[in-house]
């Protein structure tokens, strides 16, 4: 066992001093900033509400004037924000339930696995129609559809992250919470959420990036005779590309990049800096993310006053009430152990009965809808079925080609960046920004260029998949290369390994687990991207190529739900099967054989 090093008194005192003395410069200015932000939020809410609860605007025309852009961008950001908030709440709830319900756990985790693999975009028509039916006269219906869709695209990895965090809480921490009589609330606030915080933050970043990808696609789409359009950045870019307006495209992209940089600076960096204290580590690590915004929030007296007056007393009350409830329960339990038990048993029985009924109802509903779905599938003709299979094959080849291309450039590049700290300092932030620009935003532009030089959607779709997924591989390879211990690299140099030997015995095995992780994510992303990539409307013409994604999009356009359903099922099946048969064994191999234990 490693014995932790002695306290360095000088360092300890220095950090303590930092914690106790508040260095406050510009207090008035900072408070003014906070107040300003508050006012802005208020105005934003009013603006959104008047728009949502206004009447449905059947044919929104997207203005290409740059002056319309700030409002469009604002609408898009609100959509992403709401979808993300919804995802966060749902992810925590889902993860919590899965971790603590022994009966539901297996089912819920299998569900996560499958839901993660289903191509989200094929839900679009169903969700949209349902939401529009729910709010026929209000704009909010279409908006809800878009938000729900983004939600389904970003929630699963967060739920899984929260679940696995809870599951991996060290046993003694859990026991300490029990022995010191933590209520469920206190356990959640002081143990589970902090322990899960870092995982949630990183997954949130991935999710929001994914959200942009889908938002761009679903702000403007056609279902049968109906044309759904939402004023936003995605529809602006699509319209701009559709009319071939180069200036508008440039404006749109500039705003897109600006939003991404701003999100990174104003949200993610402060959040990462804040989450630093949740690192479960024994010693303080050196590098920290600094953020002026975070400092501003921490030093604002207004904020502190506000929470001191409202949150803190409420908090005290809740804890007091919880503690009282606990002692009452124990008293009752001790007073009449026998009678209480009987009552408890009866209550339990009633509860079981209730649950039984609920279960039956759910089962009936599931069987009913599944039956209808199957009936729908029966109308698919053999010819159509064959076409779907052919399409599946074509998309399969395309997905793998894009993976191969991505791996071909990202492995050498990633290893070079990972081995060279100086290069990493320059390349990593650039790559991060490039990676967060949603590929769907670039796609219309890219396609326009391709068509001009005589290329088609065959190349275009692979390019889009590449655009969307190569980053996952690149970042993982960089991380893998960085994780290869220096002494192993020194051994390779010392024994004068040839370049080939170096790659075969050191680099490739070293990055293997990371590479696989990146490829799994990339593969899933590529399948999903195929729906957008293989079918595209440009300047009043529809570009289309053979593929499963194209069939899903075309079926959406034409309102052929049976084909949509079948194609979706085929795609989900393929993704799940490939995951189980190819990626999971490889992943396990990486975890066991190629794991570098330090």
């Amino acid at each position, binding site marked *: *066992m490693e*014995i*932790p*090093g*002695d*306290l360095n008194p000088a360092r*300890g005192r220095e*950090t*303590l001093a930092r*914690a*106790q003395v508040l260095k406050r410069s510009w207090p008035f200015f900072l408070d003014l900033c906070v107040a300003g932000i508050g006012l802005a939020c208020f105005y934003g809410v009013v603006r959104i509400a008047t728009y949502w609860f206004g009447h449905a605007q059947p044919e929104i025309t997207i203005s290409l004037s740059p002056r319309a852009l700030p409002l469009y961008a604002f609408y898009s950001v609100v959509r992403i924000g709401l979808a993300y908030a919804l995802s966060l709440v749902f992810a925590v709830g889902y993860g919590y339930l899965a971790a603590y319900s022994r009966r539901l756990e297996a089912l819920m985790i299998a569900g996560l696995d499958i839901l993660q693999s289903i191509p989200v975009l094929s839900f679009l028509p169903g969700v949209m129609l349902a939401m529009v039916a729910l709010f026929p006269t209000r704009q909010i219906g279409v908006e809800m559809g878009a938000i729900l869709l983004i939600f389904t695209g970003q929630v699963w990895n967060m739920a899984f992250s929260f679940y696995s965090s809870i599951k991996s809480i*060290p046993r*003694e*921490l859990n*026991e*300490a919470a*029990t*022995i*010191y*009589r*933590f*209520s469920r609330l*206190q356990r959640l606030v*002081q*143990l589970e959420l*902090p322990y899960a*915080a870092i995982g949630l933050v990183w997954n949130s970043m991935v999710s929001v990036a994914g959200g942009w990808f889908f938002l761009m696609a679903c702000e403007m789409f056609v279902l049968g005779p109906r044309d759904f359009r939402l004023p936003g950045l995605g529809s602006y870019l699509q319209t701009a590309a559709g009319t071939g307006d180069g200036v508008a495209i440039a404006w749109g992209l500039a705003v897109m990049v600006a939003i991404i940089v701003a999100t990174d600076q104003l949200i993610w960096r402060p959040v990462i800096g804040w989450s630093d*204290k*949740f*690192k*479960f*580590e*024994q*010693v*303080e690590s050196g590098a920290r993310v600094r953020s002026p915004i975070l400092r501003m929030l921490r030093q604002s007296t207004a904020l502190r006053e506000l929470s001191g007056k409202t949150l*803190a007393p409420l908090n*005290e009350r809740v*804890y*007091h*009430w*919880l*503690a*009282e409830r606990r*002692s009452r329960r*124990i*008293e009752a*339990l*001790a007073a009449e*152990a026998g009678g209480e038990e009987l009552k408890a048993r009866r209550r339990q029985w009633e509860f079981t009965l209730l649950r039984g009924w609920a279960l039956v109802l759910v089962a009936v509903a599931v069987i009913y809808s599944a039956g209808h779905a199957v009936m729908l599938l029966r109308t698919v003709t053999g010819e159509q079925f064959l076409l779907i299979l052919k399409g599946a094959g074509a998309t399969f080849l395309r997905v793998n080609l894009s993976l191969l291309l991505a791996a071909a450039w990202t492995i050498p590049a990633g290893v070079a960046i990972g081995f060279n700290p100086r290069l990493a300092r320059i390349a990593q932030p650039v790559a991060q920004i490039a990676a967060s620009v949603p590929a769907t935003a670039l796609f219309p532009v890219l396609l326009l260029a391709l068509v001009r030089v005589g290329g088609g959607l065959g190349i275009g779709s692979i390019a889009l998949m590449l655009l969307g997924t190569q980053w996952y591989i690149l970042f993982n390879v960089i991380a893998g290369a960085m994780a290869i211990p220096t002494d192993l690299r020194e051994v390779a140099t010392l024994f004068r390994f040839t370049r080939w030997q170096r790659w075969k015995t050191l680099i490739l095995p070293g990055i293997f687990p990371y590479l696989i992780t990146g490829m799994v994510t990339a593969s899933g992303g590529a399948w999903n991207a195929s729906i957008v990539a293989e079918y595209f409307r440009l300047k009043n013409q529809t570009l289309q190529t053979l593929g499963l994604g194209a069939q899903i999009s075309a079926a959406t356009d034409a309102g052929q739900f049976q084909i949509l359903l079948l194609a979706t099922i085929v795609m989900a099946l393929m993704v799940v099967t490939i995951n189980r048969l190819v990626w999971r064994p490889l992943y396990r*191999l990486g975890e*066991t*054989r190629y794991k570098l234990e330090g």
Partner: protein
Amino acid sequence: MALQIIRAERVEKYYAQPSENRIQVIAPTDLSIESGEIVALLGPSGSGKSTLLRMLTGLSEPSGGEVYWHDKAISTADVNVSIVFQSFALFPWLTVLENVEAALKARGMDAAERRRRSLKILDTVGLDGFQAAYPKELSGGMRQRVGFARALVVEPEVLFMDEPFSALDVLTAENLRSELLELWQKKTIPTRSIFIVTHNIEEAVLLADRIIVLGRNPGHVRTDFKVKLEHPRDRKASGFTQLVDYIYKVLTQPDAQPPALPATPAGRRAHYQMLPHARPGGIAGLLELLLDHQGKDDIYRLADDLAFEIDDLLPIVDAARLLGFLTVTEGDAAITATGAEYANSEILRQKELFRIAAVENVLLLRQIVRAIEAKSDRSVPEEFFHDMLDEQFSEEETVRQLETAISWGRYAELFDFDAGRRRFIQPAKLSVEDEEEKTESPEEIDA
């Protein structure tokens, strides 16, 4: 007669297995904690010390029997205990003060009172001025002080400690121990009883009014006696060393299993020896040291010489005894003729001696070798042995048994193990047949 605070009646712990066998961790045991005493629970690893502690605190429910808290079943009683953990179990995202306050907050105490009590207890344990620090800014010893403060602030009737000093260096541990004893003796803390789990015999003799020694397979009480030595206790005093020696003897005596404790129902007898988890290199090292000590020495002194915890040394001693390299009587280890030859030989001869001893004495290794020889492709899946061991050991122990067997078998070149296919295979001979296999196991480099 002193008041019984906690009483355990016939508590036991077992894990049900898919087959009808079950893994018995703790055999039915009676135990009580009385007010005014410090109880130390000693035992080798795997004797269920921590499991027993968790059952006594109500954290874990016994598989059979009942634990009483002031004569009420512990599941329905308002239990007031604390635990000091080996890993400290502090919340790294809370400051020292918040960590201590959390326990009071859970009891619904108001903010001002909470703060007053927490600051007072932090002062008591010597953490004055550190309240705003985060645990990761503190040294191990300081962190465990926070652990003590948190445990004491709720004024527990019984203070449980699960190897509280074993993650600390020797001096820090000594320091904390004596401070704790002082708090207890001067009645600075209202705690009425302390229960400490440890594997450090001296620690037990230093602190305890009563010592309980557990045996393993399954865990059971070997002996339970009062310590009548005056405080402060002197490690050099003859009464002290005699008691330490006595406990060593109890711990190192070959486990002659009391017949009253069948490990498994259905009369299925355990027939695999439990392989001690020791590396061949460690065995060689021990034997060489023993040879330097004229071939015979007290295990306690050997541990001291090596700066080993006895818990770390015992598996190595057990392994050497199992292989017939040494004998143990009354806490003394004596080297045998083969042991001496082994210690004096160069590496190839050592491997040969180890090979002979292993096949002769270790059933599992013998079976693996035979199974490989019997197969035409000279390979046997790991699963096969896993299933056989599984009937006797817990899942975790089975995996460890196989790991040890693989380590010994590879060293002795009895067999090799293909980690990719999870199969035991014949060791590659010097004529290079299969380049792939060779790169896998580092032992091959020696050959």
